[in-house]
């Protein structure tokens, strides 16, 4: 790469609103530093478009440090792009080279309708959690002392691993069936692994899975793409655990 940075062609999905028909549009950006984050490169493009009086590309983003789960681009055919273990906002331009054409699409799934350009509606994830993603305990502060309930370190760590899911939807976007099983599996697992979650375990898994189906997510056929693309390394074991919980609940 030259000192001056990279010159790139960006092929981006543009769609005015949820009803409009979208299309891929090509843009050029120049002198992109390898130290830039992918979204900083998008900022450069948008500043360019604003200067020309064109509408900038709408995309979701917020924390830009890989934890809020808001960014959601499908880059060169991969959710969150070519790097592993990162969200789009953590992807850096050093993963690309001068002269590249980069294809940027929204996360596509029937349950994630496009709102505008690269922005999709992921409220289906929220509704799945309304169906049971909680422990029914009042926030009175009058619960028992936190240390009155010892929890094995192993269980706590495993629950934490499941709980690190950021709800970005990469698992859905990358799945050929648009399945949300990795997401739901992680949510079910966090509570299934902890003693606090046992009381409502059966209802929780049944209700969450029912809502997942209602939202139009597909089924799991064990291809494992979700685990590979997950920026937080959520394991497929969570899907197995969810299926086990569901079976237990239905017996």
């Amino acid at each position, binding site marked *: 790469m030259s000192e001056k940075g990279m010159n790139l062609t960006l092929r981006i999905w543009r769609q005015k609103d949820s009803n409009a028909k979208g299309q891929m549009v090509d843009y050029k950006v120049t002198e992109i530093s390898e130290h*830039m984050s992918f979204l900083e490169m998008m900022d450069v493009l948008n500043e360019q478009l604003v200067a020309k009086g064109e509408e900038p590309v709408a995309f979701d983003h917020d924390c830009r440090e*890989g934890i809020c789960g*808001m960014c959601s681009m499908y880059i060169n055919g991969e959710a969150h792009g070519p790097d592993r273990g990162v969200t789009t906002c953590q992807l850096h331009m050093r993963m690309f080279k001068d002269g590249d054409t980069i294809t940027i699409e929204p996360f596509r799934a029937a349950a994630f309708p496009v709102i505008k350009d690269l922005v999709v509606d992921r409220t289906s994830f929220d509704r799945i959690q309304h169906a049971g993603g909680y422990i029914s305990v009042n*926030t009175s*502060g009058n619960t028992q002392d936190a240390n009155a309930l010892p929890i094995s370190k192993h269980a*706590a760590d495993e629950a934490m691993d499941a709980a690190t899911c950021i709800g970005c939807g990469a698992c859905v976007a990358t799945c050929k069936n648009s399945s949300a099983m990795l997401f739901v599996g992680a949510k079910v697992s966090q509570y299934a692994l902890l003693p*606090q979650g046992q009381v409502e375990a059966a209802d929780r898994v049944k209700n969450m899975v029912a809502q997942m189906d209602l939202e139009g997510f597909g089924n799991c056929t064990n291809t494992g793409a979700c685990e590979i693309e997950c920026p937080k390394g959520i394991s497929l074991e969570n899907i197995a655990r969810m299926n086990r919980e569901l079976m237990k609940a239905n017996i």
Partner: protein
Amino acid sequence: MALNSKVPQGPIKDKWTTYKDKIDLVNPANKRLIDVIVVGTGLAGGSAAATLAELGYNVKAFCYQDSPRRAHSIAAQGGINAAKNYQGDGDSTYRLFYDTVKGGDYRSREANVYRLAEVSANIIDQCVAQGVPFARDYGGLLDNRSFGGVLVSRTFYAKGQTGQQLLLGAYSAMNRQIARGKIEMFNRHEMLDVVKVDGKARGIIARNLITGEIERHSAHAVVIASGGYGNVYFLSTNAMGSNATAAWKIHKKGAYFANPCYTQIHPTCIPRSGDYQSKLTLMSESLRNDGRIWVPKNMEDVIAIREGKKKPTDLSEDERDYYLERRYPAFGNLVPRDVASRAAKERCDAGYGVNATGEAVYLDFASAIERYGKEQAKIHNIENPSKQKIYDLGKAIVEAKYGNLFQMYEKIVDENPYETPMMIYPATHYTMGGVWVDYNLMTTVDGLYCIGEANFSDHGANRLGASALMQGLADGYFVLPYTIGDYLADEIRTGKIPTNTPEFDEAEKEVKDRIDFFVNNQGTNSVDYYHKKLGKIMWDKCGMSRNEQGLKEAMAEIKALREDFWKNVKVPGTANEMNPELEKAGRVADFLELGELFAKDALNRNESCGGHFREESVELDGEQKGEAKRNDKEYAYVAAWEYKGEPADAVLHKEELEFNDIELKQRSYK
């Protein structure tokens, strides 16, 4: 209007209990007749919305993100303080109270802080009951770590994602209430003004960020929990969307704004790499438990490192300046944030910065890896372990503790922090200042509350690590639900608040006029152009160190920039669609006013306290020579500003701070 903090009488230990015993309650049947609006769904707003709904009020919650779970509390890494004394190291409610007041450099309100310390233990109980997976030890009990500025281990954590786990806990509590229909959730909505009727807050004007529609929402009380204003610096550790609009709008409608100059520049962030930079990333302060901060002792080594001729690992121990350990032997690398940040700036200003920009110091884990490695070798009965074995064992421990942070660093900087020291530099992180509130967390407008980072109350001039999460959840779960009830007890006969009134008409018109201006203005400069310029003024003149001349210049420059903004800003697109540039324009317009008040407040406060360092106010001799000098005689007050049109015309109201339970002392971490 005179400020009345409404702090209850009686000994500090009994204030909150007595207060709760005496307040008016609303009976469950009547709660169903009362609506409450909560703006923001971070730890404070999320926990408040959930708890108020659980109590029976009808809650409408608003967030600009696509889900309440994405509020920026989610990015808090290190932990949450609570006076549980699980480690038996002498912690108590009083100690947490004391540390917080001292850490805040004696500029917070005693009674509020004591209450915070008092309810802190409940937070941990509550979160565990909700299924928050805090770190545990092998006996199954909760683990703790220590944080800067204190001498006990009272910080509870969930790996490096404590904020995420606590927020998901609050979000789960919200979900339960959304499912019951007690919270009506408005995602992708932004509050653009508050509506007052007969002097009371009665609703808000919000914009649907998908359709651009302007909506009216009414309620019997309005709670602002919209976070801090760190993005006034353009570059900060805040999320891109974090903004001060809700807080600033209520300021313009009568809520006093307190201590805007108290900002926290966090010592351990990843240094900036270029002009295109859009935000800065924090590396949790918990890293200072095990990392040692240093720069080279000799200038030749600094130059060699910058030129790539030497690596930091080439330098021997006696060629390194562990400047925090040198200057502050008692606290070493665990001095409070403000002290650590200024010390880094001091070394870098002196020319010892270790990267190309000259703005970076090392945070080194080599000794921690070795120490843990030796400890593990002993635990596992490994005799005469090789250097590599020690390294491997130690690395595994460091990885377990901070693995995700190290991974984050490596992804951004492209260097492996297990092999070479991290580079860090201070960045804007948190704002202690905010909307003035009384003991009830009510602003100077009746029925208008402000909680969490958006208010000013608990952290004084400097916030200690792991206290923000504590305050957010304390306010939302355990304080506001009581205090707001006392106010709402008088509202049971009010009935539904109509939105077809002149007050709503007027507020909506103001909002629409401003939006119309933006989309119709034939300007030439983008919103970011102005935001970056504002950020540079703030960083250069209202940053880690401030002086009279610089602050006066900042006020004039911000005013000029604001005037230019209102002439030449360019916003593409229309009002009736999703339009991120339009959203930014509104936020930056507010920052351009807030920034000037910030500088005015900093100019007024001619003392150094906490995050506010005035070059004119330093110790001239003795052991503390060169350190910040507080001036209790003249400045032991909260500066609450009343809006009068131009920020420069804001009128100062003082709330004198009384310290009955803590003796005012010069902070010393030596």
